[in-house]
């Protein structure tokens, strides 16, 4: 895996963008220009987005050789091909083939979103688009690498990347309603490092998405985070399932409160998030093919660790941006709590242990984390000189670490798929 930054790209742009995402403003008459909204601009019409922090969506890479071993039928006797074939059939149906078609209401709705709400809307779209695009890249690469060792799994990964490309493309189109577009295209060049020209450095996107991929000639130099395969599998399972719950909650809330439906994007969420849910199911099948990830003390610790990482990241992220959810009539905290509780219940059907999120202690401590985090954010925006800021951060970070540790040592719930239980115990957990 080559993650070196492209030299040409580096030379072509000033260093100011090295940690940010670049969004290109269209020349169209904007309701508000990026500058008006307080976005940093690096030159006319190109804005620099927020700095990358621990909580921003990121891009992942992994050990593809090890992945090949997981999916090789010769090497891994635990592969349940019946389950994987069933997933492939489900993805081939392509339920949403004709779903992501925009209508004429988008543009006008976007123009009616003004002031601070406009800014947080753009941020939401940008983060969502980046997250979907990140999934696209990872799945696409896995699809390419696994072609020889397991054609079924390779095709599934390709179909997952098809879905993610659609989602990212749809979000990028939404950004264009706000006279902006994310420059995503350069990324693939970034990771292929020139050794493979089979796709010409561009993600091969079908249909309408080809246009934005080809157009995206700008820069988005993002570091790739390396995760070992087992961690990628835990983390992507959780992010797909939590993605489903987030989208369906927003959808159902707006379905019943149409006055808060200020932008038509959300009307697409019900069908959209079925994709996420299915992706999660596939990753569940993958986890089951690695029983060492679902059984034993170490597996339990990692399971809880990944649950908490995903829940805490979302809780801090969303509460930091509660204005967005309020703009569509939601109570951010309750919404997040519901998402975490239900995601945890989905995960109980698979992971050997999960945190007990329904214990009152859990959200009490999570809320303390939110308070500490907002102190950190406020510090970052203060006028204090940088060294003093760092110093002032330390006690807050110390409190956060202590709080996270307390959450981690809370009594967990033992759980797991019935398939992993001895026959005698199966009936106890179900039916």
């Amino acid at each position, binding site marked *: 895996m080559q993650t070196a930054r492209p030299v040409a790209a580096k030379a072509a742009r000033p260093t100011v963008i090295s940690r940010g995402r670049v969004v290109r403003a269209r020349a169209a008459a904007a309701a508000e220009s990026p500058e008006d909204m307080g976005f940093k601009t690096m030159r006319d019409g190109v804005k620099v987005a927020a700095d990358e922090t621990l909580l921003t969506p990121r891009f992942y890479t992994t050990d593809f050789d090890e992945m090949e071993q997981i999916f090789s039928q010769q090497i891994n006797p635990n592969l349940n091909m*019946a*389950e994987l*074939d*069933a*997933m492939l*059939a*489900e993805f081939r*149906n392509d*339920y949403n083939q004709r779903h992501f078609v925009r209508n004429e209401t988008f543009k006008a709705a976007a123009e009616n979103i003004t002031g601070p709400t406009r800014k947080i809307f753009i941020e939401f779209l940008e983060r969502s688009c980046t997250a979907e695009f990140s999934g696209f890249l990872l799945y696409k690469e896995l699809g390419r690498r696994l072609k020889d060792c397991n054609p079924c799994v390779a095709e599934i990964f390709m179909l997952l990347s098809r879905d993610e490309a659609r989602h990212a493309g749809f979000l990028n189109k939404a950004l264009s309603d706000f006279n902006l577009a994310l420059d995503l295209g350069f990324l693939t060049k970034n990771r292929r490092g020139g050794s493979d020209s089979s796709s010409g450095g561009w993600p091969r996107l079908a249909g309408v998405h080809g246009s934005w991929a080809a157009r995206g000639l700008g820069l988005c130099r993002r570091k790739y985070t390396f995760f070992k395969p087992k961690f990628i599998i835990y983390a992507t399972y959780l992010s797909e399932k939590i993605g*489903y719950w987030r989208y*369906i*909650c*927003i959808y*159902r*809330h707006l*379905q*019943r409160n149409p006055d808060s439906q200020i932008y038509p994007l959300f009307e697409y969420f*019900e*069908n959209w998030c*079925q994709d996420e*849910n299915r992706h999660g*199911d596939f990753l*569940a*099948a993958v986890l089951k093919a690695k029983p060492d990830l679902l059984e034993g003390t170490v597996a339990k610790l990692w399971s809880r660790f990944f649950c908490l990482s995903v829940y805490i990241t979302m809780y801090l992220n969303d509460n930091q941006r509660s204005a967005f959810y309020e703009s569509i009539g*939601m*109570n951010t905290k*309750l*919404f997040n*709590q*519901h998402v975490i*509780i*239900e995601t945890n*219940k*989905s995960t109980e*059907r*698979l992971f050997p242990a999960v945190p007990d999120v329904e214990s009152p202690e859990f959200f009490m401590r999570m809320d303390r984390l939110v308070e500490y985090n907002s102190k950190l954010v406020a510090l970052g925006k203060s006028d204090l000189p940088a060294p003093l800021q760092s110093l002032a951060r330390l006690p807050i970070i110390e409190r956060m670490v202590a709080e996270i540790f307390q959450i981690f040592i809370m009594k967990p719930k033992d759980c797991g*798929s*019935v*398939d992993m239980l001895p026959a005698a115990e199966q*009936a106890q*957990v*179900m*039916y």
Partner: protein
Amino acid sequence: MPRFPPPQEWVALVANAEFFCNDVQNESLAEQLREKARYFREQGKEQDFFLVPNPKWLDAKYPAQGKQVRRPCLALVSTDTTWITFMKLRLDRVLKIELVGLTTEEVLEAGEALPEFKRPEIKTSPYPWYSAGWWEKFYPN
């Protein structure tokens, strides 16, 4: 060559009705079945899945498995065994029964109707429950 196509084999996923109909976690089943029905309409295919309340065959033909299932119960049945494999992966806490040798009429024969479920208010939920009875749309005619 057989003169008639072989009789269709059905597969069922059975669980108590509360699991299917009265658990926020499984409201996604309503979305899935609607999506699938829509897909079948678009493809011009005949629907090959149903929900059967308190299926007659459970106690009549599968008494041992029947004992494991709390009542009232509901069965998701389909002739698409591949899809059922996927649904088992999704729902996990359901009992899979291959309805070997049963006719379509036998498979779809329902028992007692499901009761009305008490639906507790969930204080974190940003939306109310799906309207009770969504499952009846997927009963055999």
